[in-house]
């Protein structure tokens, strides 16, 4: 693709200000946009589901000298029961930690831990075990950058299977780091192994059955020692693989190594029966202490609480996190709240004070600060969060876990006249309102569909409905596994529910929209069910006013709603499982036209009124057909790139479109050439043709607000300065 081709047909800006739907100004952008012409953008990065549940680790992943926290969560996808790994990077720059980037991998983290590895380019790496669905086995993953992305995915040495990474360190003392892993042999025995971190080649594979290994410097040679759980417990020299020591009593699960031994030397601890933590010193090896059990059977860390002296053992129980001197068993710090997930203790915010990060956490939220100081509305009290508190107590900060997709967005004066806000409703059943100017979270709530923090089974829909003399309503729709409340109206300021459409036969709402059908200035709500039945609901009460005939079967539908130019309105709805277009008069609910010359409709887009009314239909083959709104007759077509899910016209004739394919926005020219406009914005970008596109006045480009599986963004693109103003 060349710039010339991408800008063919660029003409002077032609303003076609017409009275648009919802009062929106439709402006044709005649001049081409260009790559790199991003004028402004913000990205709101929600915390992924189960934040930290698949591990957390601190490192400098972008090489800027400042540490970040990588947090592994999960997004359970509608079409994949096991979900996908989502990595959030918590940026500690400044006193306020914030989510800096979230990225989704094409795999699932197969363990609950992330490990930091040194990168030769000054950027730390994250090492973990990921489940490769297509290979049906776990691989070693090395991630880098912000957002974190897979740099290398390494298969385990055949015929072994990789179970988990248990440490990353220069185990053999050769100056390069290795991954200490647990492998499964073909005879189903788990054994320890040392893998080259660059190639994944096995440097050593032990023959002792074990489920856990930790590493520590326990003697005088340069190599580290592997402490191998099992009965007997073993200490193995990391360079030679020879057994340095064995303990007949065995090392139980929950092995922990750290500099908590005598004089701050490395030591290790193992869980024993009865909730005992037994501490073993290095050479000459021997048990040195036993800390009696309490409520701490969950997680433990070796942490440095003081600038000098030994590290301490932090043990998190469900009720409390406690800190012990390993050699005396004495408590060395006031207990902190407990939990059931991972935790780490670091100076995350760079204020020289340590914070404790719980991931995930489900504790009380009272008194905690949310991102951007946003005000929480009603929240599921059991919702998972990433929690950060100061080690010395106080200052609780929370990030609510929020599974994507976040594509369902709507933009408008949600906070009242003169405001400009973006509402996004996620599969995590979280409704968030973001300032469209700054991208900061203003208010949010969860549990609208009472899913108890389980993600909705399908991507939800959102629409905005105007009301007379009041704040608009956000219309939310979701497909629930059981009959219930698939459509509701929520006050756009208070986020309180105004009404719920309670009819159980509404189950399977596929799309929602709004339009003023009776000219009273308030919108009615139009619902398309999964069986392509159209419902007209009173926007103020949710009362069903009328309905069309639907199909006997169907699993998904889409629709567009537009004025008919005669005071009424029409809708085009997909039918027959997206193999048919149906034009419906929303006043009579009569079907005016049907078209069967389409297959696998992905998205509908309508613009213009009267004779200029156009309908663009995107199908699974990425073919865009332009149709007459009244007859549905095909007037032209255009080929879009494969994977296109979103389209918005850039001129009134429908010769150029803004499209989303993959993780990027593109400009699709009349010649079918697509020019990438944006950077990677996450998979599932503008899914279901959801998003808000505004042509900026004065030829200043356009603004698109959309969401993906990992973020919500506003991107403002400028026109190509070379070709602007009548060149050609």
């Amino acid at each position, binding site marked *: 693709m060349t710039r010339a081709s991408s800008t063919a047909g660029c003409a002077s800006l032609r303003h076609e200000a017409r009275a648009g739907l919802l009062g929106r100004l439709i402006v044709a952008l005649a001049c081409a946009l260009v790559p790199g012409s991003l004028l402004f953008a913000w990205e709101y990065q929600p915390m992924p589901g189960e934040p930290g549940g698949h591990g957390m680790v601190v490192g400098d992943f972008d090489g800027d000298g400042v540490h970040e926290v990588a947090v592994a969560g999960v997004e359970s996808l509608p079409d994949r029961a096991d979900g996908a790994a989502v990595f959030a990077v918590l940026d500690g720059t400044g006193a306020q930690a914030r989510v800096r980037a979230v990225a989704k991998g094409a795999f699932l983290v197969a363990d609950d831990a992330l490990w930091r590895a040194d990168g030769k380019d000054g950027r730390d790496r994250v090492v973990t075990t990921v489940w490769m669905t297509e290979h049906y086995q776990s691989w070693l993953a090395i991630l880098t950058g912000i957002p974190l992305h897979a740099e290398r995915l390494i298969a385990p040495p055949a015929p072994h299977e990789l179970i988990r990474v248990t440490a990353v360190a220069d185990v053999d003392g050769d100056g390069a780091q290795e991954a200490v892993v647990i492998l499964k042999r073909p005879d189903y025995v788990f054994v320890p192994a040392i893998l080259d971190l660059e190639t994944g080649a096995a440097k050593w594979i032990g023959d002792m059955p074990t489920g856990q290994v930790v590493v520590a410097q326990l003697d005088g040679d340069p190599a580290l020692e592997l402490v191998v759980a099992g009965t*007997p417990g073993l200490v193995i020299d990391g360079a030679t693989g020879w057994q340095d020591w064995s303990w*007949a009593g065995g090392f139980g699960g929950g092995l922990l190594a750290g500099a908590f031994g005598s004089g701050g030397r490395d030591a290790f601890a193992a869980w*024993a*029966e*009865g909730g005992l933590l*037994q501490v073993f010193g290095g050479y000459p090896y021997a*048990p040195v202490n036993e800390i009696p059990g309490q409520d701490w059977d969950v997680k433990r860390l070796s942490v440095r609480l003081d600038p000098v002296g030994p590290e301490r053992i932090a043990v998190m129980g469900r009720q409390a996190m406690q800190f012990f001197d390993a050699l005396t068993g004495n408590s060395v710090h006031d207990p902190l709240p407990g939990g059931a997930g991972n935790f780490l203790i670091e100076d995350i915010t760079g204020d020289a004070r340590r914070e404790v990060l719980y991931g995930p956490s489900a504790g009380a939220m009272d008194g905690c600060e949310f991102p951007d100081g946003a005000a929480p509305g009603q929240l599921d009290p059991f919702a998972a969060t990433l929690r950060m508190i100061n080690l010395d107590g106080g200052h609780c900060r929370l990030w609510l876990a929020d599974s994507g997709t976040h594509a369902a967005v709507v933009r408008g004066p949600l906070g009242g006249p003169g405001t400009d806000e973006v509402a996004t409703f996620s599969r995590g059943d979280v409704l968030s309102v973001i300032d469209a100017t700054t991208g900061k979270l203003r208010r949010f709530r969860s549990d609208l569909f009472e899913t108890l923090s389980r993600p909705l089974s399908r991507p939800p829909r959102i629409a905005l409905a105007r009301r007379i003399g009041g704040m608009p309503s956000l219309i939310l729709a979701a497909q629930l596994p059981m009959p219930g409340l698939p459509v509701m109206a929520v006050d756009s300021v208070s986020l309180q529910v105004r009404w719920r459409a309670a009819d159980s036969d509404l189950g399977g709402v596929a799309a929602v929209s709004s339009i003023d059908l009776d000219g009273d200035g308030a919108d009615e709500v139009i619902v398309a069910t999964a069986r392509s039945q159209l419902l007209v609901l009173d926007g103020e009460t949710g009362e069903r006013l009328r309905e069309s005939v639907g199909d006997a079967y169907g699993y998904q539908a889409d629709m567009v709603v537009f004025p008919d130019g005669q005071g009424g309105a029409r809708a085009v709805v997909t039918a027959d499982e997206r193999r048919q277009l149906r034009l419906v008069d929303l006043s009579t609910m009569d079907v005016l036209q049907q078209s069967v010359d389409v297959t696998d409709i992905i998205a509908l887009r309508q613009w213009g009124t009267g004779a200029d009314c156009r309908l663009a239909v995107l199908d699974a083959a990425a073919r865009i057909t332009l149709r007459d709104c009244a007859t549905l007759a095909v007037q032209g077509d255009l080929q879009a790139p494969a994977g296109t899910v979103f389209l918005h016209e850039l001129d009134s004739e429908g010769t150029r479109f803004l499209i989303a394919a993959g993780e990027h926005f593109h400009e699709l020219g009349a010649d079918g050439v697509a020019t990438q406009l944006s950077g990677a914005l996450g998979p599932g970008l503008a899914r279901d043709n959801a998003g808000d596109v505004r042509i900026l006045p004065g030829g200043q480009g356009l603004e698109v607000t959309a969401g993906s599986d990992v973020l919500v963004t506003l991107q403002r693109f400028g026109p190509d300065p070379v070709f602007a103003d009548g060149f050609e």
Partner: protein
Amino acid sequence: MTLGVLLIACAASVNAADWVHYPSLSAPARAAMVVGDFDGDGRHEAVLSGLASARQGDPETTLLGVLGGQADALRLRSVTPLAEAFRHGSAARGQAADGTSFVVTLSAFDTGHVEVFAGVPLHRVHTVEVPGLTRVEAVATLDGVHKIVGLMRESDPPLATYPAVIDLASGAVEWMGTAPAVTVAVAALGSDGAPKLVIGGTPGLVLDASTRALEWTWAPGFGSEIVVGDFGPGGTPGFAIRNNYEDFRSRVDIFRGQPYARIRSLERPDTLERIVTVPQPGAVGDFIGLAERVPGEPDRGELSSYLPATGQLARTLSLGCGTPVALAVGAIDASGEPRLVYAGSRGPRLCVADLTTGTPLYESIGENGPFAAVARGDVGGAGNEEVVAVGRTSVESSYGPTLRVLDGATGEVLRSVRSDYGSGSYTLPFIALAQLDADSQLEVIVAQGGSAMGEWWIEVRDGLTLQQEWERTRIDQGFPTALSTADVNADGVTDVLVLSDRARLVVLDGRDGTELWRSIALPASPAGGLASFDRAGTPQVAVGVAQGVYLIDLAARTFTANLAVDGAVIGVRKWQGPGGCRIGVITAAPRLSVHACDTLAPLAEYPLPLMPTAFWPLGNTDGHFLLAGEGKLHELRPDGVLATMPRVLGNQLAEGNQGSVRLLADGSQVDALIGSDYLVARLRLGLDDLFTGNFEVQP
């Protein structure tokens, strides 16, 4: 070094018992009690059934005990384990031609397995199967041949039983009555002196025992218990019947022999338990004795003796062991006087009382074994070797186990004390001797679990007075699994080492029980072992538990070596081997291994063909051991051959690797002090040279 172990099924080793002490019988006479002269010494002995009550999960041994006294005091002279359970069995005494008695047992209600025991100790002389036999009621000599008189069932289901006469030698049923019966007795009731069968039923019958000709009937019937005695006029033979009414009241009918007639009836309230024939020393005829409960006094019973002719109460004896649930009369002690032998309802206990005055002469509270916790030394400080032994618990919950000091030479009980704590169902007691103070007598250290988990008892008693010097309770979870001693704090006084159920070594100051140190918890297992020793002047202890052996420097309080072994550790022992200090370990693999004391490096290993409970080195050796296991002792020879000594010594033999074994000076005999679930024995065992060199070795 690993040697294969071959098993010699029955090595004819010479062995002789120095003495055997039988601490008690649980559930005495629950199934049977008979009196007779079983050893032919002219005095009676009481043979009674009992149980060696073991810990939950351990096998329960059924015993036949012989209670009697010769020149010495009344005691359990012998206890013979039975192969089968005897809970619902029955027994009767027979009389051999030489006048000695023997006992015929039916081991259970319907097994038909009849055994004949004779002698003291009782030994099995005959076995016969009599299918359908449900009770042995008497043994009669008819025409010079021993017959079982009993009850048989004709077919399934056993709705009714019938009287029967069975040839004891062959088990052949010679006669079976046609009318159902509930009991049958044999008595010489006629002027001809011939034995008659008195058959309990309705009507009651008297038949000639030889011809089975009907001699008399009693239409109202004979009840469930018949005793024979000289109840008739002028002391002629008669019999008495106990009949129970539906409202639990009883009536005792007393009958004379030919001419048959009822001569007296005694109506009793619901207090009557048993009836017994009570001889009248120096007078003609017998009393009829009624053993009864004393209302409102559960710990006391009474035996009232009545004149059969008049029904006049002759005397009443107060019985301190409670209501007799089984009783007999016999001249079982050196006095030659008839004594009342009874199992009293308190416990129950086994008691003997003077039949005239009621004076208690013997009382034994049932104890639960095993009695493997034994040790020996100059306990009393008088220069004599004495043995200390303790069982697990008393069968009466209000009493604890009894600690006994026995004469090392004779096994005679010198001193005893009963603890006042209840011990647990699963716990194994441990015992040790040590000098913990300035007096000459040793201290006895007993470690035992209490009746509740975590309720420990570590008590130290003066060996002479048996007064408690100190005790510690609730030291750790569970209960103790091993006991040893060592001077840990170098104060010149031995300290107490105990291994807890959580496999934690706890060191208590020998002076007062103050805790000096406790180790980390090792993997817990139900058994373990401790072996303390001295290395270069510092106390060490080898701890064996679960599948590991751990060496602890007690002075530095650090683990210095450890070793994983194959199988759960059963016992650990230290001795001086040919090249220095040795630690031996027996495991449930089963295996015996020998290790160097300082490093636990393996020196020898012997797979074993049986599950051991204890082992002892026989001298300065890495390959010659005495083993206890499966109720017997075995000699593991240097060539790996295991020679089993035939004598059955009981379950849980030397359990907890307890006991004391010494190789005598000439190396051919072993002096072994061991305990099992029903005995404490000091045995001198000859090591049989015939079977060395693979003679008669079976692979």
